[in-house]
């Protein structure tokens, strides 16, 4: 945040036009857009305000950026939370996201129409595209001069240099006749003056995106939307854990109760927006017993099939260096030999050592000297990973467990099991990526079965009986309650969610300003 900006503050007795819970990709663009249009906005963020230069590449210490209120993970594919998942602190998950910024494929909006499986979005890419372009332009996204799967697309910044894994994946794609490109990355590759923020420096190729960007190169909300929101009079309140939603006699939301420094506070508001993510947003609604006449709150929790395949090379790879995941191929968005619906993106993977070692440790049962030698192979390792469609399934959901957290609120229980489509996609990708690494001489090839991201649980749609919010994010049950985050995604799509979350956030802001 720019130190020269004096932030406006509101009294608790004031009735804010809009209170937003969450300062990440869902909450921040909305806050900026509403403030710019004259609304009084208060953003409640559970985590602290970090200083960028204090971020550390030490992976254990950098857990301070993760949402660490304990979650219980169940199902046949219990998902690992913590790392590279929900975030905390002003900036939300974008503090630690990988900044890989592909656009959603137009076909993924209509998966049910195309295949009879999954769910359609209530609109198509043409509706979201103007917002996507606004996001890319405002926050800064780098990409290639020519994007093979969308020739009309342009990026404002040239890509960062390709690291070892990116170069190896290019070779592997060439060997198998797959198209490849430098992927869209939400980082800047030349110094700029960001409006309302100040100087952002070009990416220094330090490789620690997931541990927090220290020089402002990575495009998060903390160096884009949030300073803009403050410049237009919004108040950001870090360290505020919102837990109770209050209503008036007519059932409309009247305010939020949150805990700050061990004390309870209340902020009154005219409109409340939940932007807390696919676990905390439904958890808030479920603990408060709100907005669930459809019975859909917490239902259809989705992830991305995120299979990784790693190999060892003869060269000194040093996978911690450079932007971690530069090379992309979109050729698997609808593979001809698919035995599944939907598709997946493939990206190259560098990785920091503990994160890489965790995948190795949890994905294998090697022991003794073989385990030590595998870990010692870090500097010779390169990976590829996918992000693939995950169908909504009734058994995958967020509910309240019987255990209470430190605030006395039930801990969330997240059930996650792959269905046949997810397993078929995993096996397809494992085969293909193994073949790709074999083609360029990788040894000790290792497949890691994993899921990433968190999507769904407060579905958006046109029918009040089967959706939590309408197609612009407004609750069907309570007309001054809105949701702006990935919990409203009707389907997972293949693309990493941050770009669509921000685009939807701007779109929801437009809808709110019209009402």
């Amino acid at each position, binding site marked *: 945040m720019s130190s020269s900006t004096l932030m406006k503050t509101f009294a608790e007795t004031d009735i804010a036009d809009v209170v937003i819970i969450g300062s990440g990709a869902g909450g921040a663009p909305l806050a900026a857009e509403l403030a710019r249009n004259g609304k009084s906005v208060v953003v409640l963020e559970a985590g602290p305000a970090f200083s960028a230069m204090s971020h550390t590449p030490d992976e254990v210490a950098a857990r301070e950026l993760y949402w660490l*209120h304990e979650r219980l993970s169940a199902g046949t594919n219990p998902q690992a939370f913590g790392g590279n998942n929900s975030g905390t602190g002003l900036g939300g998950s974008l503090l630690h996201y990988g900044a890989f910024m592909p656009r959603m494929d137009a076909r993924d909006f209509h998966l049910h129409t195309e295949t009879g499986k999954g769910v359609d979005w209530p609109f198509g890419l043409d509706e979201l595209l103007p917002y996507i372009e606004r996001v890319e332009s405002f926050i800064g996204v780098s990409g290639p001069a020519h994007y093979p799967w969308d020739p009309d697309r342009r990026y404002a910044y040239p890509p960062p240099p390709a690291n070892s894994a990116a170069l190896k994946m290019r070779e592997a794609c060439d060997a198998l006749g797959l198209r490849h490109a430098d992927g869209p990355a939400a980082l800047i590759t030349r110094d700029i003056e960001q409006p309302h923020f100040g100087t952002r420096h070009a990416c220094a190729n330090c490789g620690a995106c997931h541990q927090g960007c220290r020089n402002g190169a990575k495009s998060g909300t903390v160096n884009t939307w949030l300073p803009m929101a403050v410049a237009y009079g919004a108040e950001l309140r870090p360290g505020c854990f919102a837990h109770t939603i209050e209503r008036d006699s007519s059932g409309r939301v009247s305010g939020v109760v949150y805990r700050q420094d061990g004390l309870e506070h209340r902020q009154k508001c005219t409109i409340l927006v939940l932007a807390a993510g696919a676990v905390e947003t439904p958890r808030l609604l479920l603990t408060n017993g709100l907005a669930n006449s459809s019975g859909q709150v917490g239902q259809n929790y989705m992830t991305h099939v995120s299979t990784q395949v790693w190999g060892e090379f003869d060269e000194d790879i*040093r996978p911690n260096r450079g932007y971690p995941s530069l090379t992309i191929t979109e050729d698997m968005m609808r593979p001809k030999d698919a035995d599944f619906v939907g598709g997946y993106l493939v990206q190259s993977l560098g990785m920091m050592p503990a994160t890489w070692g965790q995948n190795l*440790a949890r994905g294998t049962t090697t022991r003794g000297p073989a385990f030590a030698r595998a870990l010692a192979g870090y500097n010779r390792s390169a990976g590829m990973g996918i992000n693939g469609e995950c169908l909504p399934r009734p058994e995958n959901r967020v509910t309240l467990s019987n255990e209470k957290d430190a605030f006395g609120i039930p801990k969330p229980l997240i059930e996650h099991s792959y269905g046949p489509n997810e397993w078929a996609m995993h096996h397809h990708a494992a085969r293909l990526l193994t073949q790709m690494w074999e083609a360029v001489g990788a040894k000790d090839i290792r497949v890691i079965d994993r899921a990433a991201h968190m999507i769904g649980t407060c579905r958006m749609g046109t029918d009040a009986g089967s959706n939590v919010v309408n197609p612009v994010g407004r609750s069907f049950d309570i007309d001054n309650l809105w949701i702006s985050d990935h919990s409203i995604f009707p389907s997972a799509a293949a693309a990493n969610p941050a770009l669509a979350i921000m685009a939807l956030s701007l779109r929801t802001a437009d809808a709110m300003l019209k009402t």
Partner: protein
Amino acid sequence: MSHPPDRPEILDSDHLSARTREILTARLSVSATQPQTLSFQAYAVLDALLPVLLPLDEILPASTDIAMTARIDAALSGPRDGWRFADLPPDAEAWESALLTLDDVAADQHGLRFIHLTPDLRGALLDAVMDGQIGLDRAGRLTASQMKRWSGDLRGEIVDCIMSDPRIQQALGISSSLTGGDTVFQGFTNVGPDSREDFEPKATAPLLQMADSSE
């Protein structure tokens, strides 16, 4: 250089921020006084298990003790990673129960406490845990399926401890902590294969010596 010095050279690099230097340096001075989280019995089992699961003698000189048991025991009482398997109790309790389960099974199968088993027998028990073959169905102990789940947590915790240790990073030639200093944020200029920059460590681990000399 045949082995890393007591104070790894990376800690004196100007490519390290003061905060990161402080975090890494603190890991050098952890010593085993007494358990902070686990009981003495469970702590002893963990101490006997670690060298069998992940021996470090091919990575570090024999004189270097990175106090893995003490650090894991302390970490179990510190901030955790924000989630756990729903079918396991909270972390500290799960670890205590898992380690005591191993000790009881050792006594049942071999008539000896786990710490008195030969390394081969300890290893065989660990393999059986990871296969989901070993567990006890009674209070304060974990079932076979819980033990298998816990073995993933065990492996993950060890790796966090190892890969975040500056002596290990130095020995394996890992430059991940050297992203940039406080006054100058250098990052990396070279990011392609076979392009180690001068400030990046060369591997000193005995098991990597052959590979490194061919660089």
